[in-house]
């Protein structure tokens, strides 16, 4: 019996959203990150970028207001907020690669204590692999955060010494939001900013391959 309750996906997303200040330009990857858009505190203006050429992405449309010409990079129907803009793919990735995004939040298979990210292929001989914009985002955004489950379904840690899956980018992840904790990637390795209530560092270490320490200021 544990003394703690893991965050569900929406709660992980909400925890990420808490840390995004007003005015940031943010790209959200597929999966948990996509949920972040819906949990930004009311009244806080955060501008979401979709790599298929949108800035100012709004929430999903009501069913009777669906616009088939408005999709995000996950091919979901979205809305565009007042102040939004359209642009083409080369301009969109100029924004990404050119360090204009304050943040991207990505899903991952694994993150290493050196900030390496593996989120695009499960093996180097993956059948029908797909990379999309993951490598561009993971190298281009000013800050790269990851939102994911702390361990795999079979309990294998995803915060590792060294990634086993093919890399998306090297040394770029700065923070990881999981169902159990928020962990910074520092020059000295993983540093825990906070954990779900009731969780101890020892509990968390049991579920983490690389060494953990508490962050000096969390």
């Amino acid at each position, binding site marked *: 019996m544990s003394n703690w309750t893991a965050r569900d996906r929406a709660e992980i997303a909400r925890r990420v959203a808490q840390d995004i200040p007003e005015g940031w330009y943010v790209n959200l990857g597929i999966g948990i990150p996509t949920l972040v858009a819906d949990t930004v505190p009311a009244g806080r203006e955060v501008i979401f970028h979709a790599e298929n050429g949108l800035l100012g992405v709004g929430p999903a449309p009501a069913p009777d207001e669906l616009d088939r*010409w408005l*999709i995000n990079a996950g*091919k979901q129907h979205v809305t565009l907020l007042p102040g939004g803009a359209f642009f083409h793919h080369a301009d969109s990735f100029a924004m990404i690669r050119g360090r204009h995004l304050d943040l991207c939040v990505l899903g991952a298979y694994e993150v290493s204590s050196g900030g390496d990210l593996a989120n695009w292929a499960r093996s180097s001989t993956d059948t029908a692999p797909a990379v999309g914009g993951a490598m561009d985002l993971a190298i281009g955004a000013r800050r790269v955060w990851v939102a994911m489950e702390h361990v795999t379904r079979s309990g294998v840690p995803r915060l590792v010494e060294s990634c086993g899956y093919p890399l998306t980018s090297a040394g770029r992840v700065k923070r990881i939001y999981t169902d159990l904790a928020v962990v910074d990637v520092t020059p000295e390795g993983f540093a825990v900013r906070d954990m779900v209530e009731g969780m101890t560092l020892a509990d968390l270490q049991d579920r983490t391959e690389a060494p953990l320490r508490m962050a000096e200021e969390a």
Partner: protein
Amino acid sequence: MIDKFVTSVAEALEGVPDAATLLLGGFGAVGQANHLIEGLLETGVANLTIVANNAGYGEVGLARLLKEGRVRKLICSYPRIAGSTIFEELYGAGKLELELVPQGTLAERMRAAGAGIPAFYTPTAAGTQLAADKETRAFDGVPHVMEHALSGDVALVEAWCADRWGNLTYRRAGRNFNPVCATAARLTIAQTQTVAELGEMDPETIVTPGIFVDRVVHLPYGDPQD
């Protein structure tokens, strides 16, 4: 009088040769020139190299070209999506060559082709298996990959509005790769949903000036379906 309009898909596709490299605009179901893409089936061309972000959806457009065995090689960023079963079957059976390119590098390689830049350096994919065979070089201590321009024999794009000079605008997320592809091919063919008289399009808001467009066919097919 310059008039880039043609009256049929067949006329629009005249002269597209076997083994051509085709650049296809579109992202998801939006902004796909599906009528032009499917028109290729009628012309009989085969052995095509296709440059596109995705590998097609359902059984329309690129998915049909793949299914009917017209494609030799696919250069794309994200072939594996819901509904891309035809791609997965062909690729799994070794009947399709795949060059996987990060999405931003794919866009920038076409942009470079259109802009007369034969090669450029990008940090994307440096140190990953997608750059394993590529020349790399450090700038300010950061590793970068040298990428080459990617040009096409033909680009097939979907526009929202066009005039007889070939000026184009797009609709919302339908812009995506279309303006980039339009610059990067020797022959650029557009299908457009609406048509404007010359001078009706605001010169401030034209996205693809006609200099990049060779032929336009008017196909008011309505909203993309997914």
